[in-house]
């Protein structure tokens, strides 16, 4: 909301001595935030004049020739095009050589044969445009009543000497959007004696409004005011409204708007003579209807919308907007003013659905206590003492007293204050304390529990000056962070192996569901209230998103780098999924031409590192007839006998959709939850080991049959003295035969004679030759 310093001062005189800085601190302490402080530059070089007479311009229908007294010997002749120019009124004049704030310099000027000796100023010539300027003032000049001719400091007449504060109030204190409640909170902070009385001084006739209930309308009133005249408000009224962020309309609406700025309760006003009846009712529509609002727009109402009716005619959409047909015009003589407290939830839902966010709709979209409605009627009756008001309310809106545990309060607040001091603060807040019972005033329907009362004390205690107190606590053994720590371990493993983490959106369109759906998971979680088709469903795989990252970066010609995402995917089950993609080769050092090869073998190494972190191991089985990967370069990843993932080279036809058809991209995708569920901390036992230097021999042999190598290895294991063996080299000869080098380690628990060793080598040679191998000398 916007509130002006002068308005606050009109309620709280002491506010004159409070600086903006102290005001900001006060607002913060009581739960409000000053978002912006607006001040105005005082215009210079302008002077107040009096329009002595107005004549029609001889050559123009739209221009007037005015004689204006500016306090000098001779009045000035000024040509003016404003429609509201009027004799005997004071105005603001820019004379020869006056420089306006926008840089424009006023010079004597011949306007269609008449020499104009200056300019009569509108608001926009005096100060930068105010967003709340009325239509009349956008086109017209400023006309003043009380200014003094020749005066050069006239800013106070149009509100330029005021300061405006843009303030956010807590969402549960809609009443603070009204000046009364606002000032009450500020007065409480500064310890000034200012209380809004629960008592309302107005005369109310029973309205017999039997529609008043807690689901539609908790109170309702109509006030008939006769013999009014509609015109434009004076600048005294307009400057107050504009400084509170309200655009003036006409003398009737502006008076009601002033009431609203004080109470936060908007009024609806109708031309009483146009209404079919003055007996209004409130009801929820039973069928759709269309209305034309006073803003000239058509609104399609639905069954359930709350409307105010006169006989069978809708006269307003309750709390949101009036119907154009019954609005107050320049010809209006009698008015009917309505104050109602409509169901705020319904009001908000209807205004959102219709995209109709009038000032009334904003104020009525949150709870308002009935007490403020009565306070509004009181103000209205002050303005129009002859108005007759009919009123009905639901009478169960009484605030129950609260019981307070003062020991709990001491512990909770820890302010080191005596009981008397605490009670004093509560009294200062308008709360009446009797033993451990606290009576809540009607205007504080937000106080519903003990903690609300604690907060009232905090408002007066400057929380920012309190010193924090360390929490004394015991160390508790906790074991609920396992998932987080495993996720972190896996991320660390990935980044240690040159993979960059990515983060992408989980909601995708239905068209994207099947893209790279390697686990063939049906999408389960579809958004019910989807208003953006690109966010229709929770994704079931991460590979599609990763490929889109590559697509995006390719479009900017960025070098591709290995990437991964670790994120839960949602189907019938919720599963932590790790997916990674990479171009086959990753440059490490271009100068030395060193690269890491991250093909299936490289990705398998990465997957094994992940398995290590999870204290498990993966097995890999070749895939065949897969939609996404090439058969000879893809594997299903198994853990504990179940398929938990895939790794492989993505088929070009899949990559083409991402504009990556010319690239060789490998992918790894693992569902980790099985590993998480079975996670066991590893227990390692050191074994005794042989302290002797191991004895090994290399034997090279050539074979044309690759399968025989496996047979040779198998037979070699039958020689009991061999502890282990390994193929350490493989070389393809010119004649396509292959030479292998097998390294054999002997068990050397005891001393072995060379002759014995040779005899075993002979045995191995025999095995090799038996399997068509040829020993290489």
């Amino acid at each position, binding site marked *: 909301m916007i509130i002006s310093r002068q308005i606050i001062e009109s309620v709280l005189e002491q506010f004159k001595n409070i600086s903006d800085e102290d005001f900001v601190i006060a607002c913060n302490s009581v739960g409000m*935030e000053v978002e912006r402080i607006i001040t105005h530059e005082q215009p210079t070089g302008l002077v107040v004049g009096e329009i002595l007479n107005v004549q029609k311009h001889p050559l123009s229908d739209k221009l007037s020739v005015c004689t204006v007294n500016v306090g000098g010997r001779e009045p000035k002749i000024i040509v003016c095009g404003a429609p509201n120019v009027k004799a005997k009124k004071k105005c603001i004049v820019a004379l020869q050589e006056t420089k306006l704030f926008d840089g424009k310099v006023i010079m004597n000027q011949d306007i269609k044969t008449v020499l104009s000796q200056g300019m009569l100023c509108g608001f926009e010539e005096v100060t930068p445009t105010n967003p709340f300027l009325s239509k009349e003032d956008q086109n017209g000049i400023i006309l003043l009543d009380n200014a003094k001719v020749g005066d050069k400091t006239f800013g106070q007449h149009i509100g330029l000497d005021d300061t405006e504060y843009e303030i956010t109030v807590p969402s549960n204190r809609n009443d603070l959007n009204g000046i009364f409640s606002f000032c009450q909170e500020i007065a409480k902070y500064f310890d000034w004696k200012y209380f809004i009385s629960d008592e309302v001084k107005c005369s109310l006739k029973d309205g017999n409004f039997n529609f008043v209930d807690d689901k539609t309308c908790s109170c309702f009133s109509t006030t008939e005011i006769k013999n009014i005249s509609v015109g434009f408000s004076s600048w005294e009224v307009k400057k107050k409204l504009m400084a509170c962020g309200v655009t003036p309309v006409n003398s009737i609406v502006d008076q009601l708007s002033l009431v609203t700025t004080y109470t936060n309760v908007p009024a609806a006003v109708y031309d009483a003579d146009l209404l079919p009846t003055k007996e209004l009712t409130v009801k929820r529509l039973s069928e759709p209807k269309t209305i034309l609002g006073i803003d000239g727009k058509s609104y399609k109402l639905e069954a359930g919308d709350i409307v105010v009716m006169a006989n069978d005619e809708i006269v307003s959409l309750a709390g949101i907007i009036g119907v154009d047909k019954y609005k107050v015009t320049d010809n209006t003589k009698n008015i009917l003013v309505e104050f109602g407290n409509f169901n705020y939830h319904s009001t908000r839902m209807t205004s959102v659905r219709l995209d109709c966010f009038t000032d009334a709709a904003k104020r009525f*979209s949150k709870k308002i206590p009935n007490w403020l409605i009565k306070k509004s009627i009181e103000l209205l009756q002050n303005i129009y003492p002859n108005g007759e008001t009919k009123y009905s309310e639901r009478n169960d809106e009484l605030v129950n007293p609260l019981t307070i545990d003062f020991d709990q309060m001491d512990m*909770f607040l820890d302010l080191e204050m005596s009981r008397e001091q605490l009670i004093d603060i509560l009294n200062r807040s308008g709360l009446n304390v009797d033993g451990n019972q606290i009576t809540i005033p009607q205007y504080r329907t937000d106080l519903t529990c003990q*903690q609300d009362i604690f907060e009232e004390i905090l408002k007066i205690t400057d*929380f920012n000056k309190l010193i924090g107190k360390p929490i004394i606590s015991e160390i508790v053994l906790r074991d609920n962070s396992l998932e987080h720590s495993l996720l972190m371990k896996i991320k660390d493993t990935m980044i240690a192996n040159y993979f960059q983490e990515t983060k992408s959106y989980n909601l995708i369109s239905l068209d994207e569901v099947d893209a790279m759906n390697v686990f063939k998971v049906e999408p389960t979680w579809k958004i019910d209230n989807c208003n953006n088709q690109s966010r229709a469903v929770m994704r079931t795989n991460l590979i599609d998103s990763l490929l889109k990252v590559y697509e995006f970066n390719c479009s900017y010609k960025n070098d591709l780098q290995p990437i991964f995402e670790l994120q839960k995917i*949602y189907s019938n089950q919720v599963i932590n999924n790790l997916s990674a993609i990479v171009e086959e080769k990753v440059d490490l050092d271009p100068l030395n031409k060193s690269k890491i090869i991250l093909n299936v073998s490289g990705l398998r190494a990465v997957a094994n590192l992940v398995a290590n972190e999870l204290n498990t191991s993966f097995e890999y089985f070749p895939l065949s007839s897969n939609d996404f990967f090439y058969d000879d370069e893809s594997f299903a990843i198994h853990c504990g006998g179940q398929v938990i993932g895939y790794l492989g080279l993505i088929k070009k036809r899949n990559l083409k959709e991402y504009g990556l058809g010319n690239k060789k991209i490998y992918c790894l995708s693992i569902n980790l939850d099985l590993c998480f569920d079975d996670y066991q901390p590893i227990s390692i036992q050191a074994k005794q080991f042989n302290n002797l230097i191991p004895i090994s021999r290399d034997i090279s042999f050539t074979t044309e049959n690759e399968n025989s190598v496996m047979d040779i290895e198998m037979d070699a294991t039958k020689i009991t003295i061999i502890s282990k063996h390994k193929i350490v080299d493989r070389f393809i000869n010119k004649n396509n035969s292959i030479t292998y080098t097998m390294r054999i380690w002997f068990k050397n628990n005891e001393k072995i004679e060379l002759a014995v060793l040779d005899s075993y080598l002979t045995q191995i040679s025999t095995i090799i030759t038996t399997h068509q191998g040829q020993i290489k000398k």
Partner: protein
Amino acid sequence: MSNLDTQKLINNLRKSLDDQKTEASLIEAKNIFIKKHLSPLYDDLKLAPASSKKELGIFINQFKNEINDTFETIRSRLIDALEQEQHKVDYNIHIDSTDLTKGQLTPISLIVNEVTEFFKKINFDIVCGDEVVKIKHNFDSLNIDPTHPGRDKKDSYYFNDESMLRSHCTATTALIMENNQSHDIRVLSYGSVYRNDDDDLTHSHQFNQIDFVWVKEGLSIRNLKWLIENLLKHIFGDQAKTRFRLSHFPFTEPSFEVDVTCVNCGGKGCPMCKQTGWIEVLGAGMLHENVMKAANIDIKTGIAAGFGVDRFAMLKYGISDIRLLYTNDFRFMNQFKKGAK
């Protein structure tokens, strides 16, 4: 013998040794010198009368030491030079070569790690929880009544009458608190949350939050202040000042919005902080009694707070567009690599 000019001889030795290119030739040159100039002195010593033997012995020893010192100095220098020669490599340091920087976490993970590091020290459980949650945990358990604007379909994503995408991590915290019998519940939840919002510079339909509660009998608002101030110092540095502003959230009472001195201007006032010198970073408060009741917990006091990880990342790393956190542009992401050029 005292007529022998040892200084001159040593200079000759130095010259001779300086000319040598290998350690072997250096030793050889030394041996030749010894044979020529030192060994004859030992012969003289044998023949010298007993009266001058002692003096001659001392002279020979001094000469020998000088030879050895000279040799060792030059040998050490030669070995250094030879090693340097062996390691001579024709590199040009200006050529952009090795790029051994590893992968890197996203700015979001970096912030999460930084915050969880703080909470691990004070013994918190760290959980990420599911993003699909029960409406009950996202709203009802948190004292957010059915008419609250945040429950509007235009604001949150719903799957059906029971489930939705969590709109805050407090939904996860509420689930963990439910029926929790511990007398000391300390839990931090983090991860993606969702709002039915249009994406722009500062808004994203998916973003990240961290939320934590410490439920324990006897906690006070001064404890809350201590915890929040220390957390913000951990993240923004010891120089960061904090400001608490009373506010309203349905699940805490009292509630605070917490500001830190503007990271851009240091509190002087700039467009980023709207000339206030403060930047709002966090919401906090004492858990509302209705939240305790909904969770079926007997404990009366609890501290709670939550904040947007994306916003923290934007403030800390000077990121002006939240969408950069989700487009994964390598030009942006590579800046977060340690040692990035």
